[in-house]
């Protein structure tokens, strides 16, 4: 009887532990993540403009390492968004939204500098959008 009670207690405690862990599950942190695909900003946008569905197959929700030249940096009420040059005639870019929770060595970037970010690809909305970004240094 005692054994059953102890076993039950262990199960309940483990269940509570898992629930607690899940509830407080940390946000995606790509700092030490290995990227699935490396690509440059121009190629990424061009692929999406050519075939959005196929590009989503290839990139969506994957960890992408994207290289490019910074064209614009915006701090939108605490959310940092960095645009990477693509040469698109309408001015559409690859947009990297920095992770709000992962640590960053810096959040200031200058137009014209080459950078590389790791981020998860959220798809095409005029621009190609990458979320959870961290800089690759």
């Amino acid at each position, binding site marked *: 009887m005692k054994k059953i009670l102890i076993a039950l207690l262990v199960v309940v405690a483990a269940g509570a532990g898992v629930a607690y862990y*899940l509830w407080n599950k940390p*946000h995606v942190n790509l700092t030490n993540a290995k990227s699935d695909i490396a690509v440059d900003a121009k190629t990424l946008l061009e692929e999406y403009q050519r075939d959005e569905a196929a590009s*989503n197959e290839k990139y969506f929700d994957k960890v992408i390492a994207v290289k490019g030249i910074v064209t614009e940096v915006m701090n939108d009420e605490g959310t940092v968004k960095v645009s990477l040059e693509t040469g698109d005639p309408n001015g559409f870019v690859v*947009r990297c*939204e920095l992770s709000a929770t992962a640590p960053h060595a810096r959040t200031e970037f200058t137009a014209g500098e080459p950078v590389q970010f790791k981020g998860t690809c959220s798809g095409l*909305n005029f621009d190609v*959008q990458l979320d959870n970004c961290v800089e690759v240094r």
Partner: protein
Amino acid sequence: MKKIVLLFVVLAATTTLSAQNYFTRDGKVKLDATSSTSPEKIEALTKTASCVLDISTGKIQWAVLLKSFKFEQALMEEHFNENYVESNKFPKATFAGQITNLSEVNLAKDGAYNAVVTGKMTLHGVTKDITANGALNVSGGKIRVNAGFSLMLPDYGINIPSLVSDKVTKDARILIDATLEPMK
């Protein structure tokens, strides 16, 4: 000849008019699906909604990538993407519509206007007609759009399991705040 010239003038004029597009890629869309009995907030925000508004015709288009919605709880964000909106199958929610009371709205002139927008909302692969009221504030060459409306999630094939129905409402509230600038 005169007719052809006239035709060209008319064409040129209409092209200029139809080119009066205002745009943003930084629209904020807040989703609030907190049920009245929920102890915690079920809400998410994206700051990367796009909007294109043609001020001459009143045509307006929105698009938002569902993966860009941020929740406070990582687990909620995961459930939202995987179990509710299935963003891997349907990465985007879109709206394409029309300001129906354009005659009362002069977007070329500074001021505050109430707009009624009606059009087609596509979410989770389902398209429905919706109508929403919004406020438009025109100032210094920019148009700020504020609107709020409800979406019945089951209408879009998004079912709320009864297990969480005390927390997550079927009747999600959407709030929009975006500042549009002339498209370059």
